C-alpha cells in the first residue's frame, strides 16, 4: 500500500471504541483519607496513561457526570527518563508515560476492557492524589555522597581514564532515574523502617567503581553498612523485576554484600 492509498482510505481501527475507564485512588491532603473515583475518557488511538490523565485534567468530571477537582499527578519528561510519573497501575508499579492504552485493550479482544486501576505509590507519603513525596530517596543519595568529588579552587585537569569494561558496567547503573519502583515493590522497604533499598546499593557501586568516585569509597560503603543498609536486604529480588531501566540491581546488591564483608574484616584487623 502506498502513502497515497492510505490517505484515500483511512485505516479502520481494529479496536472497538469503548471509552477508557479509569478508577483512581484520590487523596485531597497528606493527612486526608483516600477515596476512589471513576472517570471515563473518550477513546483515541495511541494514548498512554499520562495523556488520559491530561484529558481528565482538562475536563474533571467523573463517570457519573459529577464535577470534581482535577486529578493531580506528576509528569515531566513523558519518555521514561525522569521517573516522576511513577504510580501503581493495575497493581504494578510503573511509569504512567510508559503504560500504553492500546496494548492493554488489545488483550480484551472485542469485550469492553476492564477499568484501569490507578493508585499512588504506597511506600511514600502522598502529597495529593497521585503525587508522592520521595524525599527519602534523595536524602539517602545525600548520605551516600551520590556524586563525584570534583570541586576545588583550581582546574584539576582531565579526570582519570575509565576503561571500556568499567564504562559498560557504569552505564547500566547510570540509567537510574530515582523513580522508586524498586522500593515500592520491595517487601523489606516500609514506611516504618529506614531500609535504603536497591536504588542506593546500585548508586554506591556506581560511584565507587568510578576512578574519581573512589576518593569517597569507604564513606559510601560505611553509609550502607549500618541499620537500613545492605544487611537488611531480604533477597526477594522484586527490585530487578520491576526496574523500568533494566538496571542489574542483583549485581549491585551482591557487590555491596561482598564489599561490606571485606570492609568489615579490614576494619576489624587494621583500623
Amino acid at each position, binding site marked *: 500500500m502506498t502513502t497515497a492509498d492510505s490517505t484515500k482510505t483511512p485505516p479502520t481501527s481494529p479496536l472497538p471504541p469503548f471509552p477508557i475507564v479509569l478508577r483512581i485512588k484520590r487523596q485531597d491532603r497528606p493527612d486526608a483519607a483516600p477515596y476512589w473515583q471513576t472517570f471515563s475518557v473518550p477513546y483515541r488511538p495511541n494514548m498512554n496513561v499520562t495523556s488520559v490523565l491530561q484529558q481528565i485534567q482538562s475536563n474533571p468530571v467523573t463517570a457519573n457526570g459529577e464535577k470534581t477537582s482535577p486529578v493531580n499527578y506528576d509528569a515531566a519528561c513523558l519518555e521514561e527518563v525522569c521517573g516522576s510519573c511513577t504510580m501503581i497501575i493495575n497493581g504494578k508499579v510503573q511509569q504512567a508515560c510508559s503504560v500504553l492504552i492500546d496494548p492493554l485493550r488489545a488483550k480484551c479482544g472485542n469485550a469492553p476492557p476492564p477499568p484501569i486501576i490507578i493508585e499512588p505509590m504506597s511506600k511514600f507519603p502522598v502529597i495529593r492524589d497521585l503525587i508522592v513525596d520521595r524525599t527519602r530517596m534523595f*536524602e539517602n543519595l545525600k548520605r551516600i555522597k551520590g556524586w563525584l568529588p570534583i570541586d576545588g579552587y583550581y582546574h584539576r585537569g582531565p579526570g582519570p581514564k575509565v576503561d571500556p569494561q568499567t564504562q559498560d558496567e557504569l552505564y547500566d547503573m547510570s540509567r537510574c532515574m530515582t523513580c522508586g519502583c524498586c522500593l515500592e515493590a520491595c517487601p523489606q522497604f516500609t514506611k516504618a523502617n529506614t531500609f535504603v533499598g536497591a536504588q542506593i546499593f546500585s548508586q554506591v557501586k556506581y560511584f565507587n567503581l568510578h576512578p574519581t568516585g573512589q576518593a569517597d569509597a569507604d564513606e559510601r560503603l560505611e553509609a550502607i553498612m549500618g*541499620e537500613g543498609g545492605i544487611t537488611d536486604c531480604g533477597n526477594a529480588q522484586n527490585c530487578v*523485576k520491576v526496574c523500568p531501566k533494566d538496571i542489574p540491581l542483583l549485581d549491585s546488591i551482591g557487590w555491596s554484600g561482598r564489599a561490606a564483608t571485606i570492609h568489615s574484616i579490614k576494619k576489624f584487623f587494621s583500623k
Partner: protein
Amino acid sequence: MTKFGFDTIAEQRHFLLRRIHSLMGLVFGAYITMHLFVNATGLWPKAYQQNVDHIHSLEPMLPLIEIGAIFVPMLLHAIYGIYITKAGVKYNMMKYNYGGNIRYTMQRWAGVILVLFVAYHIATLHKWGLALLGVQGFPKFDAQNMAYQSTVRAVRSPYRSQLANIAVIFFYLLGTWSAVFHWANGLWTAAIAWGLTTTAASQKRWGHVCCGFGIVMLVLGTTAWAAFAIVGNPDLPVSQTTTSGLGQAQMNDVNGHR
C-alpha cells in the same frame, strides 16, 4: 528519619548481629544436614541405634557440643530472625508473584513453622525439654538400646488419641519439609549476603546448586520421616536393634519402661 552509617557502636552492632544471624543459620543448617542423614538410617533400626550410640559416645562432651553447635546457634538465629521479620516486612507476594518473592515469603513462613515445630520437637524428645520440668505424658527419647523404638513411638503413636497422633505425624512432615526448604534457600541467600555470589548469573548458578542440595535433603528428610512415621514398628524387639543382644531380664526392664 534516623541517621544510618557505620561510625557508631550501635550501627556496627547491627551489622555484626545480622552477620551472626546468617552465620548461625549456616551452623545450625550443617547440624540439620547431619541430623537428617542420621535419621534417614531409621530405615535400618540396627544402624540407627549404632549411629545414636556413636553420637552418645561423645559424652561427657556431648552437652557442650549440643549447646555450642546446636542450641546457641539455633536460638540466636530463631530469636533474631523472628525479631527482624516482625520489625519491618510488608509481604506483597500476591501483587508481585515472582519466584524470588515467593521464596522470600516462604522462607519467613517456614521459619515461623520451624520455631513451633522445633520447640515441640525439643520439648517432647530432648532431656532438656518438658522432662526437665517433670511434665509427664510425653514420648521420651531413650537413647540406650531403645533409640529406634522410642523415636517411632514419638513420631507415630505418642498419644492415646489417634487424631492427635495423625496430627503429630503430619506436623513432623511439615516441620521436616520446612527445615529442608529454609536450609536450602538460606544457603542461597547467605551466598548473596556474604558476597559470594555477586552477579545475577552466579546467583542463578548457585541457586541450581542449592536446589540440588535441597532435593537431596528432601529425600533424606522424607526418608527419615517415613522410616519412623510410616514403616516404623514401636514394638520391634530390642534384640533386633542392638548388635550386642540383651538378656531377657534387660528386655523385660526395657519393655516395662514403656
